[in-house]
């Protein structure tokens, strides 16, 4: 293990497909037992980073390491210590739950009494025992993902990559899946989880946000909320709430027509906005009957603000 104690690390990782740069100079490191959330729009490069760290694709430049093993040199050794649950359901739908488990145990070289014991453990952990003889294809989304997780960790990996493990499954199933992650994480397993759900990101110890192949923010939720770039100087983040029954979308239109409004979006019956401090008093006058209070940015606010900044900088540079 490297001196820093990092279990997963990427150093100036760059991955190109032809002319297209899918991952551009990405560096980060994750410590043992962390549950690291990784967010970013579709096509931003999340899956590509995971595949590179797992040794499925070779980085164009830069490198990374898992448990101190360089991904370029120790691809085969890394496989023994890494669990990977791909974005697609990577199980055999025509095999039963048990056959899938047995197969993955087999390909990891786990046989005999050890396999039986491990299978027992996984059944207890995931609670999938009642469905042992059911074909994987006939499971509901939540159970499919539990089975996929069981298969991905059959060899007791110390590092687990989960690529959108909760995409398309219901909130209850999502929550119980996350309970599983926390359970394993508490035992010292390091998790790298990609997701598009903010509530899931907020449960992670630390999160990374990748946009357009660039990693633009990494840190704990509190760190990201205090990030200077997310709270630009001379602005204040506010929540606007109409006291009456006024329609929030009408209020949003009225707000956007005012000067000094950088961002505004609807949250339920209220509006979150990033407003220039100088404009705030004029705004109170223009919007009578609206309660305006300063708030902490949510994780989503932070990502949206950072994304706008980069997009604006890019369009500014283009001009």
């Amino acid at each position, binding site marked *: 293990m490297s001196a820093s104690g990092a279990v997963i690390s990427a150093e100036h990782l760059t991955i190109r497909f032809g002319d297209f740069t899918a991952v551009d100079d990405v560096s980060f490191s994750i410590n043992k037992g962390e549950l690291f959330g990784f967010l970013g729009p579709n096509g931003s490069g999340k899956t590509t980073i995971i595949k590179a760290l*797992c040794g*499925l*694709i*070779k980085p164009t430049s830069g490198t990374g390491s898992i448990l101190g093993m360089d991904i370029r040199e120790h691809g*085969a050794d890394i*496989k*023994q210590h*890494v669990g*990977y649950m*791909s974005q*697609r*359901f*990577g*199980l*055999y*739908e*025509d*095999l039963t739950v048990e*056959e899938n488990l*047995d*197969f*993955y145990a*087999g*390909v*990891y*070289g786990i046989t005999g009494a050890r396999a039986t014991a491990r299978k027992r453990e996984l059944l207890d952990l995931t609670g999938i025992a009642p469905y042992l003889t059911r074909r994987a294809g006939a499971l509901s989304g939540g159970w499919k993902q539990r089975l996929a997780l069981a*298969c991905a960790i059959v060899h007791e990996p110390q590092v687990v990559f989960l690529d959108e493990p909760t995409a398309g499954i219901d909130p209850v199933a999502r929550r119980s899946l996350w309970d599983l992650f926390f359970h394993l994480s508490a035992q010292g397993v390091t998790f790298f989880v990609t997701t598009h759900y903010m509530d899931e990101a907020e449960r992670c110890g630390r999160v990374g946000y990748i946009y357009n192949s660039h990693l633009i923010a990494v840190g704990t939720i509190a760190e990201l909320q205090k990030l200077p770039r997310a709270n630009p100087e001379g602005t204040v983040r506010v929540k606007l709430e109409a006291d009456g029954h006024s329609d929030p979308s009408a209020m949003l239109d009225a707000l956007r027509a005012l000067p000094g409004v950088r961002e505004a979006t609807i949250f339920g019956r209220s509006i979150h906005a990033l407003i220039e401090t100088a404009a705030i008093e004029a705004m109170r006058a223009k919007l009578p009957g609206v309660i305006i209070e300063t708030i902490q940015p949510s994780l989503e606010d932070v990502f949206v603000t950072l994304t706008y900044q980069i997009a604006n900088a890019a369009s500014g540079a283009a001009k």
Partner: protein
Amino acid sequence: MNGLFFGVGPICRKEFTHLVRDPGTLVFALVLPLIQMLLFGFAVDTNVRQIPTIVYDQSRTQPSRALLDSFAASDVFRMSMTATSEPQMDEALRAAKARVGIEIPYDYAWRVQNGSGATVLVLVDGSDSNVAGQAVNAANGVALTQSIAALLRGKPIPLEVRPMVLYNPATRAANFFVPGLIAVLLQVMVILLIALSLVRERERGTLEQLRMTPVAPLGLMVGKMLPYGALAFAELCVILTVMRVVFQVPIHGSVLELLLMSIPFLLTVLGIGLVISTRAKTQAEAFQLAMGTVLPSVFLSGYIFLIDTMPLFFQGVSRIIPATYYIQIVRGVILRGAGFAELWPNLLILTLMGIASIAFAARLFVRQGME
């Protein structure tokens, strides 16, 4: 751990489970060939027999009837209609009610008897060149034997050729085609099944998951080859049984030797299937590539057309087609009772092709596994 081939066991076992679980594949592999065999085996009959023939006999004499009898006796012609006028005969030919018309002139008996040279008109429908050719040959044969008999006037014929067709005495088309069909069917099934099974894993994402496990590329490859090789053997046995029982094609050689000599061919086609699986992104693409190997194996392997009569270029091509050698082996064993002693050159070439094809596939697999 057996490093180079790590994972063979579990993959093999899983593949057998797939086969048992999905009867579609088994039906495809074992029943479809039978249907194809029945279709081809019965439909393809290049021997021409019983061509419907119309007769316009103006002579109506004993010699003219004797001539018509010898036409009928050849088994090539079937005297199905008689015409009473020339236009009637032409009409029957044009409407394809008859393929051959025989017109005997009114002075036929007289001319034959005084030796002044009788002319019999034989009209042949040329729209099927095979039928036409055999009809013309048979008609010439009849005329020749009749002429000689007339000249000799009862004396024995000084020279007679008695052709005897060996190995396939009835010159039955089934005996010739069904053994060739074995090679073509085995090739199609093996290439298609192994290529599709791998490409399906790529499409579904399980291949990516497998690449994250310690399964070695060659473990995956061999783990796929064993079940589909076994399936091909089962298919071979089924086809041989049907050939023997349904088509009544006798197997003159040793079935065991035939099975043993099939191994290099199976390895070759398994290798081709594996190579296709590394190239094709979708199942449709794999299907097309697999079918692309079928046409040359049908037309240039000697299955339908004799290699010796092909243009030189195609003769050259036929030499690099594995089915060419396997068909020789299958026909040799089944029709001529040949064995290792006679067929070893074919076996040697197939063995080399098998090694080359597997080696090439292995190279692609290892390289793909590293990416």
